[in-house]
């Protein structure tokens, strides 16, 4: 495939679709576990989004290169081996450079292996498309995933702890002097679900073709 056809309009849709119409979290229902668990603060969410970006786009390319050689009966195991090898790399890099964040993410780095976004995209896209397109699909889907992660983490950190990326925004703005209190509920697990639920509500209210029947 030549260079310019890779960036043709049709291929750009691969990048832009997952951001809204075909978002992995709110529409395809993939990769939810990690999206909910590590969104208490922005920093781990950003690190997680970047890790998924690396793993998903590289795994997409590798599987797409091997797509004609993988027997379909054992494809899941092949996927898992490719993903697990990449995740081990990411995990070691995180431990070496951002140890505190890696501790905070605890088992969730390992759980990128079973993050269904990756398996889902490998199965649905990389097995049927050439490497260039698969790479764009990987990028697009991890951006879509990252955006949701960052939006949820933004609200949870701001309302729950009054900080953004560790910086005490509300305190600097003097909101506490007006009698505002942090909403401790936002930090607890259930509010992550409600936040994502409201996000889905807002997205579907804007984009009516996504509405489900029951």
């Amino acid at each position, binding site marked *: 495939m030549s260079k310019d056809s890779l960036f043709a309009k049709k291929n750009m849709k691969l990048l832009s679709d997952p951001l809204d119409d075909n978002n992995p979290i709110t529409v395809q229902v993939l990769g*939810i576990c990690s999206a909910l668990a590590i969104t208490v603060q922005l920093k781990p969410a950003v690190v997680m989004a970047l890790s998924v970006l690396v793993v998903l786009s590289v795994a997409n390319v590798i599987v797409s290169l091997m797509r004609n050689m993988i027997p379909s009966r054992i494809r899941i195991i092949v996927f898992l081996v490719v993903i697990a090898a990449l995740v081990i790399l990411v995990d070691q890099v995180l431990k070496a450079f951002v140890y505190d964040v890696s501790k905070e993410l605890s088992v969730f780095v390992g759980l990128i*292996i*079973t993050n*269904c976004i990756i398996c889902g995209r490998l199965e649905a896209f990389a097995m049927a498309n050439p490497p260039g397109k698969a790479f764009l699909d990987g990028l697009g889907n991890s951006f879509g995933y990252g955006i949701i992660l960052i939006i949820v983490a933004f609200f949870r950190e701001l309302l729950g702890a009054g900080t953004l990326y560790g910086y005490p925004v509300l305190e600097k703005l003097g909101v506490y002097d007006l009698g505002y209190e942090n909403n401790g509920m936002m930090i607890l*697990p*259930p509010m*992550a679900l409600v936040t994502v*639920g409201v996000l889905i509500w807002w997205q*579907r209210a804007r984009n009516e073709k996504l509405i489900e029947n029951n």
Partner: protein
Amino acid sequence: MQELANIFIKSIFIDNMVFAYFLGMCSYLAISKTVKTSVGMGAAVIFVLGITIPFNYLLEHYILKEGALVWISNDFIDVDLSFLSFIMFIAVIASIVQLVEMVIEKFSPALYSSLGIFLPLIAVNCAILGGSLFMQERGYSSIIEATVFGLGSGVGWFLAIVGIAAIREKIRYSNVPPALRGLGITYIITGLMGIAFMSFMGIKL
């Protein structure tokens, strides 16, 4: 004995896979449309967790942990293979799931027809791998404790999925705002169930 009961209760209610750690959410949301299928899926999860966690416990203690290889020879006392644990755990899970599927198909076609379709889905269910990773992180002291933890987590997941499926069956008769139908309202209900489960948090075991 009391210790085991504590681990069991704790892994069902206090450290519930779904409500406290969001593990296995993808299949939890996708398969909870009717109670019948969710019972099948839940049973498959209990089953697989109960088998894979003791297996991975053995793997962790005789191969992966630092100094675990001394049973072969004292030369290996400094060997630490724990960076391999992700790939080993997932390989064990994927192959056990495949094996279990074949065994059930051979010996119990009835069970296979009710459980079988869920088994391939389970290899990529994060609750299973998550269970093994939590087992590793918390360092249970014996294989029996690890097994009890696995079964308890499975039962917790089962309770969660059957609960949400029952609510979703009922909610079909309610007038939910259109944009919230389906996925959105399921999230919010799960959040409410999570708040209910949080009341167990104060229990010290």
